[in-house]
């Protein structure tokens, strides 16, 4: 037995979708591996990245798509509109692409207030302007009352890639350093604080931002930058586990170096959550060679979205592909994928 996902066979005859199939954990991986990938099988899809590079004449076009079903629609620091723009931009940026255009599709529920939709759409416009991208095409559908949850948004992003090296988990090597761009867990806790009856009086804001300008400055490092990921659903733990499995390596994180705001830590203590499992919407994790780590760290720290960047661990050899945490208490423990749903509908 290792940490490698032992796929659980999907029961395609009488099985049903449950919430864990969307929570970014093992159940979702099973669904993708056993249902979507075999059906759509092609070399580009099989790269299995958040975005895909499409070779077109002599330019590299990058495409990514993402749906947003967050509940509640508004949370401290943003709303579903900001998320829908920034999230897809970030998916493009994680392959080193410069985002250029978005398309957007709205599924609206009968009875949804136009005033609320107006606020959400204006937030999208502001986020797009800030990111210097254009929303160039769209679609609108309305479903009957009680058949939706106000509004669901899907965005597809198109970007171009000018670098001549790959940013991909296959380039990760033993000894690589792992850098996070800032403090973790803020988006998940901000959404949680707005849930019914939790009465969490926290001043915490979601960290939702578009990360492509930070990524563009990080690309200056050149091919020593190996891989980028944004730790959204499932948090840092999910991303590190995915990476460990796809690159067939182990990961060792040092708890003392993890940047976590006190209010996130407190909220996690109260609700029994692990900040490593809590979602982020404006953070990235970078893998780079050991030699270049300090250079990359200082590049990141000079950017407004990377001021609190920190080296949090390294890639180690491990045939079992575990992610381990050196605890501040002096021990070591496994950081696992989250099982089931810790916080459903956070993005």
């Amino acid at each position: 037995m290792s940490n490698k996902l032992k796929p659980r066979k999907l029961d395609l005859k009488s099985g049903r979708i449950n919430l864990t199939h969307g929570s970014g954990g093992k159940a979702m991986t099973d669904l993708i591996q056993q249902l979507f990938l075999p059906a759509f099988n092609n070399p580009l899809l099989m790269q299995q990245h958040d975005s895909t590079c499409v070779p077109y004449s002599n330019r590299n076009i990058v495409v990514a798509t993402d749906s947003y079903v967050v509940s509640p629609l508004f949370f401290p620091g943003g709303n579903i509109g900001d998320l829908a723009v920034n999230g897809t931009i970030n998916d493009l940026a994680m392959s080193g692409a410069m985002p250029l255009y978005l398309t957007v599709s709205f599924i609206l529920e009968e009875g949804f207030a136009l005033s609320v939709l107006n606020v959400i759409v204006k937030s999208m416009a502001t986020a797009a302007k800030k990111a210097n991208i254009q929303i160039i095409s769209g679609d609108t559908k309305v479903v009957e009352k009680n058949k939706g949850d106000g509004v669901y948004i899907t965005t597809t992003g198109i970007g171009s890639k000018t670098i001549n090296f790959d940013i991909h988990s296959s380039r990760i090597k033993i000894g690589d350093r792992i850098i996070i761009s800032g403090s973790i867990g803020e988006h998940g806790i901000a959404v949680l604080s707005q849930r019914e009856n939790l009465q969490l009086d926290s001043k915490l804001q979601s960290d939702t931002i578009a990360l492509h300008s930070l990524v563009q400055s990080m690309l200056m490092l050149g091919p020593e930058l190996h891989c980028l990921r944004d730790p959204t659903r499932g948090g840092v733990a999910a991303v590190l586990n995915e990476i460990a499995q796809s690159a067939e390596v182990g990961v060792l994180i040092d708890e003392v170096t993890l940047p976590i705001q006190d209010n996130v830590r407190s909220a996690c203590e109260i609700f029994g959550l692990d900040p490593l499992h809590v979602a982020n919407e404006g953070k990235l994790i970078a893998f780079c060679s050991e030699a270049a780590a300090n250079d990359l760290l200082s590049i990141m720290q000079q950017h407004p979205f990377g001021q609190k960047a920190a080296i949090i661990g390294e890639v180690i050899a491990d045939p079992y592909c575990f992610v381990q945490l050196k605890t501040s208490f002096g021990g070591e423990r496994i950081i696992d994928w989250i099982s089931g749903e810790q916080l459903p509908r956070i993005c």
Partner: protein
Amino acid sequence: MQYIDDFRNARIAKQLAKKITTTVIQNRKYQIMEFCGGHTHALHRYGLLKLLPPQIEMIHGPGCPVCVLAIARIDQAIALSQQPDIIFCSYGDMLRVPGTKQQSLLQAKANGADVRMVYSIDDALQLARKNQQKKIIFFAIGFETTTPPTAVAIKIAAKENLKNFSVFCNHVLTPAAMRAILHTSSEEKPVVVNGFIGPAHVSTVIGYQAYADIARDFQKPIVISGFEPLDLLQSIYQLIELINAANPIVKNQFTRAVTATGNQLAQSYITEVFSLLDQFEWRGLGLIPYSALKIRPEFSSFDAEKLFPLHIEPSEEHRACICGSILRGSAKPFDCKLFATVCTPENPLGACMVSSEGACAAYYTYDRLAYVKQIKTTKA
């Protein structure tokens, strides 16, 4: 957070571990049961077992409310959730606990039942107020810690005359379970317990005196312990001293929260709303007399079992699952053939793998690496 960090100081932990090592008598064994799943998880999460001398064996007790619920109750919960017009409210952990034939509330939800995960019984009350046309059932589980909120919610529902709110009551009692473990020690594979690390949160409600009879009757010292690593190490140290001195008393390490008589207001709410059930089935421990609570007749209009009497087919545990032995303290998670192969937190075959307080989940989450290495060495 400063407050919590003080109780997680690695330097002091090492000093305490050293004190424990010098206090144990070389040629004897100490079999200590930590009753609560919260303690089991803290022992593993902070790697405390590695700090303890080899004379000490920690035995994991049944203090996991999700784990001790007999499979028949899970089946009943699933059946209740499938009745017409029901919104069935449950704590998150309960959703994935497998019932007969691996059915769970999560599957019932996917099959169309309106099952909602709530963080507290208040959420269920709120749902009842907002959905007058629906019937809201709250899946009440837990030891004495979660019982007072259920009592208060039933009182509120009575006061507001909420006609669509009821409780599926599964509240169980800690001292009764401790007694049952000491009684079952005479069975085929006896569980030897020299002393208990006693519950933290339960004791804030019932007070540490509630265990005095057990300590005296069975001649077993008990130390009530907080959940942080330094709490546990200090409690183990105090318990070793009591065992060495053959002094079967109840000592309170968790002085910042637990008093001798506990929270008497909370206790009065419990007695007002609940009375003792003659007997209740526990997973692993079987039928234990006077070990659980039922809703008093004057509040029977809030008793889901009275409102929706259901016939449930006989329940069946997974044949190879050893949750029962683990809860009795007579087996450890690594002893189970299913552990981490077929049974994982994503696909739990037994309750101990589901709950955030379950022993199997603790071993899986924190000690799987050691387990993998152990298997590798054995095979080599």
